[in-house]
């Protein structure tokens, strides 16, 4: 007998409408219908009003000719390409900054984070100053610093700084020789791939052998020999098919070679160093979360300091580091939209900027752009969560 059932008595006699399960599902259903109706009428109204004002709508514009130039394109693009193509160019430029930025930020972040806990006064102080200065300045300001302050100090293309006459640095960017693949170059590329595969397999085998016998093999030396030797042998055998096109100054700019535009350098460096300051703090927190007993135990087993850090502390710290690290990766990706401030042709500048202005279809374009950032962030989060699962503490 329960009071909830009311005066009527037994559980079986509860009226349908008073059943808590039916009620909660019913209420949720009503809420869902209201939300769907609001969303639908919002979209409907927007469409009617845009049509009434004769503002163009729909996604047909993606097939129209864009008619503007972009100065960094990872895929072939010209003024006659479509807005859809321009969108992909912008998207790839955003992903490029995000990937390179995350790579650099992680390396600097880990070094500085470990540096903050160093026993060496100099290392510790430099790391602390780095973190406190960079994380406390607005990222846009740092991007403008890298762009305007560093760019104005660079010489023009006619007086560019030349490194061995092959690489040129000027206010037009860094120009490096472009590899030209002649006949037989495919064999060399295959040789490089084979060498990398071989090294991975060898390391694996060496590790399992050490587990079994306790004997250690000179992994580093063997790896280096294979990595250099195999491609070199292939090059000699095929008669050096890979040559380099050295950039040459012609007219206003360098012709030939691969050019890294200063906007990319400034944006990537600024975002990487800024985010690294936050990552460093995550790493420090993670390391400090591993109890000192672990370190002492490792030391008493005879592990050296570096080995203790690499084999005992960091693996345990990772489970604390990974979740906030994911947030920092997402922040870096989203902050890359500040590119618009220095004219780097990212998704926001190319698509939500020039394309939006030329077509005037603000609602569609902003919706697509937001959807893309959401998708990028979710993909990053999924990858990082999968990794997090792997390094999470396994209870035995």
């Amino acid at each position, binding site marked *: 007998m329960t009071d909830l059932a009311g005066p009527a008595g037994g559980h079986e006699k509860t009226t349908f409408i008073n059943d808590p399960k039916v009620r909660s599902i019913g209420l949720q259903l009503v809420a869902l219908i209201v939300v769907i109706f609001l969303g639908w*009428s*919002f*979209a409907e*109204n*927007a469409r*009617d*009003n*845009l049509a*009434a*004002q*004769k*503002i*163009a709508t729909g996604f047909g514009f993606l097939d129209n000719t864009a*008619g*503007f*130039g*972009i*100065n960094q394109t990872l895929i072939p693009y010209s*003024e006659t390409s479509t807005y859809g193509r321009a969108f992909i160019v912008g998207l790839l430029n955003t992903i490029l900054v995000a990937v390179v930025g995350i790579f650099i930020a992680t390396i600097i972040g880990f070094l500085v984070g470990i540096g903050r806990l160093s026993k060496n006064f100099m290392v510790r102080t430099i790391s602390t100053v780095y973190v406190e200065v960079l994380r406390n300045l*607005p990222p*846009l*300001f740092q991007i*403008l610093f890298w762009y*305007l302050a560093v*760019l*104005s100090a*660079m010489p*023009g293309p006619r007086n560019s700084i030349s490194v061995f006459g092959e690489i040129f640095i000027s*206010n*037009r960017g860094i120009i490096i020789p472009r590899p030209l693949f002649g006949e037989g170059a495919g064999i060399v590329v295959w040789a490089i791939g084979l060498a990398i595969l071989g090294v991975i397999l060898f390391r694996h085998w060496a590790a399992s052998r050490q587990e079994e016998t306790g004997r250690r093999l000179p992994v580093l030396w063997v790896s280096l020999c294979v990595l250099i030797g195999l491609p070199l042998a292939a090059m000699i055998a095929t008669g050096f098919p890979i040559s380099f096109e050295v950039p040459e100054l*012609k*007219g*206003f*700019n360098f*012709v030939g070679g691969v050019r890294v535009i*200063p*906007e990319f350098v400034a944006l990537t460096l600024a975002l990487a160093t800024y985010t690294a300051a936050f990552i460093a703090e995550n790493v420090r927190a993670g390391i400090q979360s591993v109890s000192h007993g672990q370190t002492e135990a490792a030391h008493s087993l005879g592990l050296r300091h570096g080995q203790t850090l690499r084999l005992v502390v960091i693996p345990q710290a990772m489970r604390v580091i990974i979740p906030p690290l994911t947030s920092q990766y997402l922040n870096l990706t989203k902050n890359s939209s500040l590119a*618009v*401030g*220095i*004219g780097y*042709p990212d998704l926001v*500048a190319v698509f939500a*900027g*020039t394309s*939006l*202005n*030329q*077509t*005037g279809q*603000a*609602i569609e374009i*902003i919706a697509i752009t937001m959807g893309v950032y959401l998708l990028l962030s979710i993909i990053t989060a999924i990858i990082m969560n999968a990794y997090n699962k792997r390094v999470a503490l396994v209870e035995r």
Partner: protein
Amino acid sequence: MTRCRKFSAACELPFLSPVPSRTVAAETSAPIRMKKAAIMKRLLSTFALAGAMGLCAFGAQAATKLEQVKSKGFVQCGVSQGLPGFSNPNDKGEWSGLDVEFCRAVAAAIFGDATKVKFTPLSAKDRFTALQSGDIDILSRNTTWTITRDTSLGLNFTGVTYYDGQGFMIRKDKKVNSALELSGASVCTQTGTTTEQNLADYFRANNMTYEVIAFATNDEVVKAYDAGRCDVLTTDRSGLAGERLKLTNPDDHVVLPEIISKEPLGPVVAHGDDQWFDIVKWVLFAQLNAEELGVNSKNVDDQLKNATNPEIKRLLGTEGKYGEGMGIGNDWGYLIIKNVGNYAEMYDRTVGPDTPLKLSRGLNALWNKGGIQYAPPIR
């Protein structure tokens, strides 16, 4: 679903209340804050547009633009973020320039007071969204009249305040005399303008290669050009005259002779309110007619009393009731000329030969003086 009546408050978007001009003028010295504000503003105005479009039905039930303007007591005018001669804060922090004076003339026609204007500085890419969402009443921001903008953005161009064309500026020491020698050059320009497309067309038509670096605001374009990031700066020629003054050494730079496009610049209003469209259109025509008839702010009081020419009498409202058709006072013409002046006065004060921009009238002279500025008659 109840439409606009219920949501009329949302239609006017009170949360997007415009920034007073003075605050904004003070902020121009802090480019970073302004950039953040600009990015926020773009997002906000897109949301406002989506909101305005989603929540309220435009048209019949809503108050007319003129009623709205009268009840709030000022005209909200969208201008640039700082282009000397057209819309730029002067040393007192007040907005000045040709585009700014035009908005003052509209305010004078409605309120008899040229100061009843508030200015919203907009980047090239935010400008149309701000107008579509009703954030501003007039867009007077050196905006080129093109078919896409006129027909697919829900906007109406009301006339041409300045006939312009796109040109190139380059350092003198590059020793270039013609735009046809620019193959391979790096070109800086502002994103969200017609110049980006003209540039692509011109280089393609002449089989030349180029690299374009597009920035969000004028100031960034000028800074990057000054820092040597690019060889050439391109925008409308009137704009080049203004931008040149911002460079470290204006005399080291030269504007190339080629004009590669037609850029008729003029005020814009939103679709859906023909009365407002008429008012804005006829303010400019009144100023042009006044110049043609020799009426200016100095002699207007005298003309009001003594003029015998019926055309002048109709312009100043002593004969006929031409303001009535637009829902404003019949002395609208007098108020414009008295408070702001005719087209020539406006031009000479802001961009003319005696200003730092030193732009001669050229195409912008009246039709009977060798130019193409021509206004329909008031009758």
